[in-house]
C-alpha cells in the first residue's frame, strides 16, 4: 500500500529524519494561511498516490500569499494524472546545494532488505546506476542484525561522501532502515534528501509503501488499505476480501486463484475483452461469492460472466450457492459459464446447472472460453 507523501514524512520524522516545515491544506485559502505561518517562499505539492507528480505540474513553488492561492487552485481544480486532488502539502522551500538519493526496499528474489545510496538524487537514479556505477552503492541487510551505523558510514565512504555529508547521510540511512523495519515497509525512499546552502539536511519527498499483510501490526498508524485505493470497485473488492482489478472489456471474471485469474484474462483477451480480474484467494464461502458476483456485475454493459474455480482449499460447492443466489435474486440474463474442478466438483455442477449456468465440459480454460464464445455467438 502506497502512502501519501505527508504520511511518509510523518514516519520519517518519527525516526528523526528532518523534513522541512509543512502543513496540509484542503483549499487555496487554507494553503495561504498555512504558507504564512510557515513562512514564504513555499512549495505546494499535490497529495496523490501516483508517481509522476513533478512532470504533471503537481509540485510548484510560490513566493507570495496570492501566488500560493493561485497555484493551489490550479493544482486542485485540475485532475492530477486522472485523480482528484483532495489535499496539498504546503512545505517550506529550502535552498538546495546538493541532492542525494537513499532508499530501502525488499530484494524479493533473495528475500532480504536492500539499502541503496546514490550521490545524486532526482529522476535519473536508474540511469546513473547503469552509467556511473561508482556513484551508487547498494547493500543487502540481515533481518537479524539490521543496518548498523558503521555499515551505513561504509556505504557513504564507498560513494565518496566525507565530513558532514558522511555523518548526516549515514544517520539518515540507519533511520530510514528503522522506518522500513518498524512499519513493515516494502519500500522507503527519499528522493531527494538534500543538503541546503546553510548546511542543513532535509528529506524533501517521501515514497513509502507498506506491506498490506503487515498492517494489522500497526493500529497506531490509523491507516486502512481502503483509504489508499483509488478505484471504487477495487476498494469494494478489498472491503469484501477479494482482489479485484478493473479492466476495459465486457466479460466479467471470477477466479479462485491469482494465476488462474490471470490465465483466464489472457485466454479471454484473445478474442474478447475481460471486464475485470477477480480472485477469491483461499477463503471461499457462500457469502463471499455472493458479494464477489455482486461486485463484478456492477460494471455496465457486461456481455457474460465467466467463472473459473478449483476445489483445493476452497469449498466450491458453497461458492456456487452464493453465485446462483445472486443470479436468481437479480434476474441476471447474460450468459454465465462456469468451469469448476476439484473437491466437490459434482455437487458444484448440479448447483450451477439447476440455476441455468452453462457448466464447461472439459478440463481446460481454453475450452471453457470457446464454449463461452459460442454461447455469445448463438445469443447474438
Amino acid at each position: 500500500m502506497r502512502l501519501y507523501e505527508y504520511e511518509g514524512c510523518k514516519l520519517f520524522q518519527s525516526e528523526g529524519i528532518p523534513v522541512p516545515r509543512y502543513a496540509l491544506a484542503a483549499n487555496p485559502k487554507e494553503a495561504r494561511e498555512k504558507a504564512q505561518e510557515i513562512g514564504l517562499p513555499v512549495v505546494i505539492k499535490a497529495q496523490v498516490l501516483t508517481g509522476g507528480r513533478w512532470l504533471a505540474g503537481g509540485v510548484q513553488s510560490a513566493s507570495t500569499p496570492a501566488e500560493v492561492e493561485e497555484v493551489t487552485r490550479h493544482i486542485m481544480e485540475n485532475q492530477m494524472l486522472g485523480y482528484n486532488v483532495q489535499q496539498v502539502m504546503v512545505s517550506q522551500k529550502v535552498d538546495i546545494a546538493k541532492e542525494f538519493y537513499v532508499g530501502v526496499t525488499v530484494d524479493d528474489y533473495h528475500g532480504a532488505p536492500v539499502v541503496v545510496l546514490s550521490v545524486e538524487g532526482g529522476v535519473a537514479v536508474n540511469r546513473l546506476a547503469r552509467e556511473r556505477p561508482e556513484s551508487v552503492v547498494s547493500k543487502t541487510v540481515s533481518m537479524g542484525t539490521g543496518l548498523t551505523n558503521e555499515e551505513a558510514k561504509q556505504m557513504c565512504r564507498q560513494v565518496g561522501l566525507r565530513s558532514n555529508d558522511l555523518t548526516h547521510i549515514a544517520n539518515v540511512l540507519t533511520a530510514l532502515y528503522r522506518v522500513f523495519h518498524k512499519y513493515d515497509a516494502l519500500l522507503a525512499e527519499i528522493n531527494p534528501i538534500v543538503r541546503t546552502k546553510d548546511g542543513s539536511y532535509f528529506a524533501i519527498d517521501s515514497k513509502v509503501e507498506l506491506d498490506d499483510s503487515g498492517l494489522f501490526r500497526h493500529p497506531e498508524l490509523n491507516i486502512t488499505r481502503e483509504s489508499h485505493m483509488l478505484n471504487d470497485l477495487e476498494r469494494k473488492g478489498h472491503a469484501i476480501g477479494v482482489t479485484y482489478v478493473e479492466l476495459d472489456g465486457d466479460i466479467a471474471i471470477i477466479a479462485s486463484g491469482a494465476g488462474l485469474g490471470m490465465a483466464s484474462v489472457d485466454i479471454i483477451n484473445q478474442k474478447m475483452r475481460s471486464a475485470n480480474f477477480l480472485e477469491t484467494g483461499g477463503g471461499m464461502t457462500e457469502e463471499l461469492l455472493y458479494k464477489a458476483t455482486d461486485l463484478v456485475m456492477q460494471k455496465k454493459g457486461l456481455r457474460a460472466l465467466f467463472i473459473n474455480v478449483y476445489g483445493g482449499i476452497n469449498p466450491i460447492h458453497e461458492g456456487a450457492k452464493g453465485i446462483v443466489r445472486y443470479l436468481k435474486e437479480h434476474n441476471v440474463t447474460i450468459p454465465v459459464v462456469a468451469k469448476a474442478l476439484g473437491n466437490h466438483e459434482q455437487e458444484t455442477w448440479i448447483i450451477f446447472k439447476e440455476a441455468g449456468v452453462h457448466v464447461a465440459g472439459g478440463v481446460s480454460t481454453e475450452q471453457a472460453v470457446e464454449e463461452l464464445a459460442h454461447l455469445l455467438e448463438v445469443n447474438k
Partner: protein
Amino acid sequence: MSILLNKDTRVLVQGITGKTGRIQTKFMLDYGTKIVAGVTPGKGGEIVEGVPVYDTVAEAVTKQGAEAAVFFVPPAGVKNAAIQNIDAGIKLIVVVTEHVPVHDVMEISEYAAERDVIMIGPTTPGIITVGEAKMGIMPAGMFNLGRIGIISRSGTLSYEVSVNLAKAGLGQSTVIGMGADPVVFTNLPELLALFEADKGTDLIVIVGEVGGIQEEKAAEYIDRWITKPVVAYIAGQNVPVGKRMGHAGAIVHGDGKGTPQSKIAALRTMGVDIAEFPADVVKLVSKHLGNRPKTK
C-alpha cells in the same frame, strides 16, 4: 522416485485443530500421506482424524518421529510456529497460509537457511508426490502418476496444467507450488535442481507469473545446470501490474525485468519451450517426450 516428499515421510500438521487443518488432514490421510502428529498449542491430548495432537513440535518429534510439517495457521502465527519447528529439528516445512507479512518471511528465510531447513511457500498449495503423499491442499483428482515434474508459482494453475496433462494421458512425479507471494522461502532454481537430480523425472514444467525475477533467474540456472527438457507457461500477459519497487528495485534487479516479455525471452534463449496458453503445455510436453532428452 520424487522430490522432497514420499509415502514414508513422517508429516506433522501444524494447526490441525482448526477448520481447514481438520478437513485437509482428512484429505491428506485419504491420499496416503503418513501423518504422524498434529500440533496446536493448548490442544495436546486431542485426536483429529485418528492423529494424536501435541502442544509442542518437540513432543511430536520425540514421540512420533515427525520430520516434515505442513502449516494451517493464521498469518500472525507463522513466524513463531516456523521457529519452533526449525528448533525442533523439522527439515521440510510447507506454509499454506496466505497473507504472511513479508518481513516475517524474510526473517524466517534467514533463520531456516542457517539451519539447512527447506521451506516452501507461503501461499502455496503445497507438494504432491503423485500416488504417494501430499502436504497441502491440492485436490487429489487433478493428478496422474508419471514422469513430469511441475513447479508452479500459482496453486490453481498447477491444478489446471496437471489436469490437462492427466487428461492427455501424461502424468507427474512431483508437483510443487513454490508460493504466490513476491518473496518466497525457496526460489525456482533450487527446485529445478531437485528435479534435475530426481531419477523419476524426465521433463520439468514451469508455471510462472508476471512480476519478480524468478523466471529470469531460472533461465540462467537452466543454461548452466539443467539437462532435462523444460517447458514453461507464464501467466498474466494481459494483467496490468503495479510497479512497486521504485528506483531501488530497478537498481537491485535492473530495468525492464519482471515483465512476461522479459521472462519469456530469457527462458526461450536457454532453449525452454514456451506455451502461449496453459493447454499448450500438453502439446509441448508431448513433443519432447517423443524425443530423447537433450544432453549437456
